[in-house]
């Protein structure tokens, strides 16, 4: 009997402790910290600079960066993180586009 109750008891105690721990934490469960958001914004800026240096900046990336910074300033960390990730992703895609297009553009030139 003891062998059955003991694990269940341990799980229950662990669950209660987890709930208490989450309740006293200043960060909501699953929400990024301001530092994490700032890191992703910095990454996005770096990728955007690279895309621009290749002549391939996308107009949506600076918009997402602005949205991320505004949300960060308003302490809306989840929204800020999402916008920063979009900015980073679009900038990375722009760099990838530049790499692919550096040679593939020739395939579109009409030949006689």
């Amino acid at each position, binding site marked *: 009997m003891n062998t059955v109750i003991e694990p269940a008891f341990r799980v229950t105690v662990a669950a209660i402790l987890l709930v208490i721990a989450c309740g006293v934490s200043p960060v909501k469960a699953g929400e990024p910290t301001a530092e994490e958001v700032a890191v992703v914004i910095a990454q996005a800026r770096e990728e955007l600079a690279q895309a*621009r240096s290749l*002549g*391939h*900046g*996308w*107009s*949506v990336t600076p918009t997402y960066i602005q949205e991320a910074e505004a949300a960060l300033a308003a302490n809306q960390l989840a929204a800020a993180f999402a916008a920063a990730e979009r900015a980073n992703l*679009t900038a990375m*895609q*722009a760099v990838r*586009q530049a790499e692919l*297009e550096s040679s593939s*553009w*020739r*395939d*579109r*030139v*009409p*030949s*006689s």
Partner: protein
Amino acid sequence: MNRTNCTALLPITALLVSMLLSAPGWADPAQDLAAFQNFYQKRFPDIPLAAHKDGAYALDEAKREQWLEMEDFPPYEIAVDDGAELYDEAFPGGGGYADCLGDSAPAVKQLYPRFDGEAGQVVTLEQALNQCRVEGGLEPLAYEGEEMAALAAYIAMESRGRVFELASPADPGALAAYENGKQFYYTRRGQLNFACSSCHLQSVGMMLRAERLSAAVGHATHWPVYRGKWERVGSLHKRFQECNEQVRAEPLDEQSETYRNLEYFLTYMNNGMELNGPASRK
């Protein structure tokens, strides 16, 4: 590797080089021009090449009728009148545009853009006009401003009926500028992953929402343009910016080196076409 082996490789090397040069995208400007114009002749066998100077209105009869109605009272007329006044303005340092732009002035649009070997870059009509102003003691005009558009509209009107006969880019600098413009034209960019050629070669004649996609072979002939959505006359570079924005790419500045190179390539592809600017578009 001994001499015998090297000699044996020569025919293979020559074959590879000739294959590379004959591959799409590696042709010289004259071959590009022939292939470019041939593409449209094959794509639209019933439409004379020269008719593409009217853009989408060469491809869509209903829209052409609406456009011709609009041309009865051309919305660029005021800009042409303003441009004529600006053109006649005497420079403080003496002379005027007529003295600066050469013998055929004011009908000079067919001469631009051209590659300036000394400056090592493409010079557009707008740059030449500002160069005249500065040499004559005037401040240069803003490229995106209405005064520059008006001046260009007057010169375009005076150049109507002339034909583009740009010299084939020959020296290394001109070829580099041409290749840069060509690469820009065929390169996909922006979040929508579109090249200029995606709309105006690959999908030419098709509908993009409510708009018929025009042939690029008439794209350099009619600028500047009064565009309904701009509610003013604007330049070819302003249209480049708009195209870039539409595919969610960051636009460049008017008269940036890349846009001038793009204009150089595009205008060379329009060689032999008659000028019919200024024009009106929706």
